[in-house]
């Protein structure tokens, strides 16, 4: 056992397994929020116009949703167990405080699964109205599921709803725990991310088909629906990012300092673009500095004081380089997505029809390039919020190292689950390609 443990310390293995499980599940969770919205819009257009292409779209997207939802459901189950398998110390402390959003999520997920069954298998068994209603319930409960889970994560960043007495949580108030400081900004940011990510990824996939010369109504209408969901969300996302950043600036100065690679407390702090944080020398090299921009962004005041990492004991610093780079990636991708969305909507509005977008090959090529960006930005964003909270599992309250299971040899389950998920991911991609290749060419 000792040789295995030497290969990877248990805490690192547990964190890696959790990160890998979350990073895998988040893709399916996000699609579970975005794709039902696309299906419902398509089906609703079908009931309004009677155009069979919309029905075809709704059915084809729903097959994708069936595969992705199933993998999301089982990988979500893994996460709910892993809370106890990997972090029993966290659950012992926090279970009674943050169980509330998980209970609510349980119901939302239940409702989602029930009505997804009706939606997928009930085309011939329930009325048209009931079928569309089932789709709407799936879309709404998908959003609610995501919101509840993110509220639990927000609590880990800004714990509330209990008092600490002699190292124990007393006077627990579960509903107050839900109303924590980061809950609003985090849930808003994640919900928009889910719509922007799914919408622009689907738009990109259909843009590729259009570029390859398949100009069927199927792909044209699909592009329109996907853009109408994804583009507005992508344009709003920078605003919600601003809300998030200001919340982090107030409640988690160490995280803000890390994601900005901001070592010294100062007034009129500059914003770093790029650069490599040198933790030993406590400076950020090779970055483009925009004077006073960080103070402006974080506090809406160019002269505001922004706390640096120097206000935080060295052993409470998150891994600065990872957080800073992940943050840069997220912001860069989000900015590109917002700009391309403005371009696409402008073309669409000017041309009065989706064909104006379809006929602009440069725009289509750009949309094709944007395809993976939403999901990459989401992974980067979760890296920022999770790694940026380290070394705490509950900010300022419980260290990750004190929450981990005493079981040794954790590198083994980490490798097994990684292998399992790599395999699953490959199969899902293969199956979705099958669905896509069989798309109609008319």
């Amino acid at each position: 056992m000792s040789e295995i443990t030497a290969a990877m310390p248990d805490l690192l293995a547990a964190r890696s397994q959790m990160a890998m499980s979350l990073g895998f599940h988040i893709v399916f969770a996000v699609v579970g929020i975005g794709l039902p919205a696309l299906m419902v819009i398509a089906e609703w257009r079908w009931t309004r116009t009677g155009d069979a292409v919309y029905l075809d779209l709704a059915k084809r997207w729903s097959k994708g949703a069936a595969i992705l939802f199933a993998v999301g459901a089982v990988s979500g189950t893994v996460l709910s167990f892993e809370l106890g398998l990997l972090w029993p110390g966290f659950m012992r402390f926090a279970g009674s405080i943050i169980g509330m959003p998980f209970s609510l999520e349980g119901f939302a997920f239940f409702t989602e699964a029930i009505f997804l069954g009706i939606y997928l298998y009930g085309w011939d068994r329930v009325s048209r109205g009931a079928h569309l209603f089932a789709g709407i319930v799936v879309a709404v409960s998908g959003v609610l599921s995501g919101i509840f889970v993110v509220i639990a994560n927000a609590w880990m960043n800004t714990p509330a709803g209990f008092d600490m007495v002699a190292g124990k949580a007393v006077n627990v108030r579960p509903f107050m725990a839900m109303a924590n400081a980061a809950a609003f900004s985090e849930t808003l940011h994640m919900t928009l991310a889910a719509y922007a990510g799914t919408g622009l990824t689907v738009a990109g996939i259909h843009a590729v088909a259009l570029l390859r010369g398949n100009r069927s109504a199927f792909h044209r209408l699909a592009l329109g629906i996907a853009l109408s969901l994804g583009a507005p969300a992508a344009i709003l996302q920078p605003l919600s990012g601003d809300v998030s950043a200001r919340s982090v600036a107030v409640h988690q100065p160490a995280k803000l300092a890390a994601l900005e690679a901001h070592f010294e407390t100062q007034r009129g702090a500059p914003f770093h673009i790029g650069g490599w944080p040198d933790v030993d020398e406590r400076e950020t090299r090779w970055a483009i500095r925009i004077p006073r921009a960080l103070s402006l962004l974080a506090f809406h005041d160019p002269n505001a004081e922004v706390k640096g990492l120097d206000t935080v004991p060295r052993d409470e610093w998150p891994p600065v380089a990872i957080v800073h780079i992940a943050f840069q990636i997220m912001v860069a991708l989000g900015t590109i997505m917002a700009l391309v969305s403005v371009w696409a909507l402008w073309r669409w509005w000017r041309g009065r029809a989706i064909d104006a977008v379809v006929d602009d090959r440069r725009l289509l090529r750009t949309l094709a390039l944007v395809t993976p960006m939403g999901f990459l930005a989401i992974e980067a964003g979760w890296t920022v919020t999770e790694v940026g909270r380290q070394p705490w599992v509950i900010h300022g309250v419980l260290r990750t190292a004190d929450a981990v299971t005493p079981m040794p040899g954790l590198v083994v389950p980490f490798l097994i689950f990684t292998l399992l998920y790599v395999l699953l991911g490959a199969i899902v991609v293969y199956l979705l390609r099958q669905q896509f290749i069989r798309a109609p060419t008319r």
Partner: protein
Amino acid sequence: MNLTLAEVAAWIVIVALNAYVLFGGADFGGGVWDLLASGPRRQQQRDLVAHAIGPIWEANHVWLIVVVVMLFVCFPPAFAAFGTVLHIPLSLMLIGIVLRGSAFVFRSYSYGPRSEQRRWGQTFAVSSLITPAVLGMCVGAVVSGHVGAAMKAVDSGTAGFAATYVLPWISPFTIAVGAMAVALLSFLAATYLTIEAAADRALQDDFRNRALGAAVAAMALAIIALVLGAETGVMARLIRPGWATLVLAGSAVAAVTSAVSLLQRRFQLARVAAGAWVTLVLWGWVLAQFPLIIPPDLTINAAAAPNRTLAETMAVLAGGAVVLIPSLWYLLRVFKGRSSLVGSR
């Protein structure tokens, strides 16, 4: 009986577990019959299983999430102990859950060659067998008191790896409980499937015979588990006179009733009796173990979250049930209503 809030919460967890066993458990049993499909109607057997569980397995699966969430909200130390000592079997169970669910949809939505679909079918079937077996072993480990003992060793820092993380869940008794779980759920699934197969007498007979075989196996394994576990405190209370014994006797009546009604081709009655049997086995265990959540000595009350958490969680459960119960009823009416009423005699 004066119940504390914590004990009410514990009963709710058990009701949810009961629902998971009756609905989700039968879906795993269906997978076992996919694995054991044989004879001239092998393909029809597999198609019937897929048809029966397709629309409902994901909703049925969520009962497990409800159980897990209720456990960690209302009984955090117990959840932490299960996660610690049963890390290995619970991980195996999760792998089974992941493979079962994904392989099932992969098979349903694949356009690939037949060999590829067959491979996913096999994965679905094998993982349907492993998952309930391991879950049964975990229950056996809790019942036997070994989980509680191992957790004490962890807390006092005297834990050896095998003694803490392996031996508590591997013993003749836990293996017997695991095998009994598989047999019972297979029996339950086969009994449900006799009703799904109402339109095809030969196929119906296939599942009737399978149900009878599984019933005999489950009865035998139940007796073996009772004998092997006789020296554990919980199992001893099943045998000694008391509420638990009464429930155990009731489960024996239900078992015989279900077998006889299968023989008489009274499939609706068989389904009710089968559900009752499985339910009474579960409640027999729970009553024998009450008021302990982890034998030998951790009680439900000692492991409970603060009362405010329990009260607010129950308020949410009550509110959620208002949405959930009509929705579940609607789902089952859409997919199970018609077929379950036609040709049951």
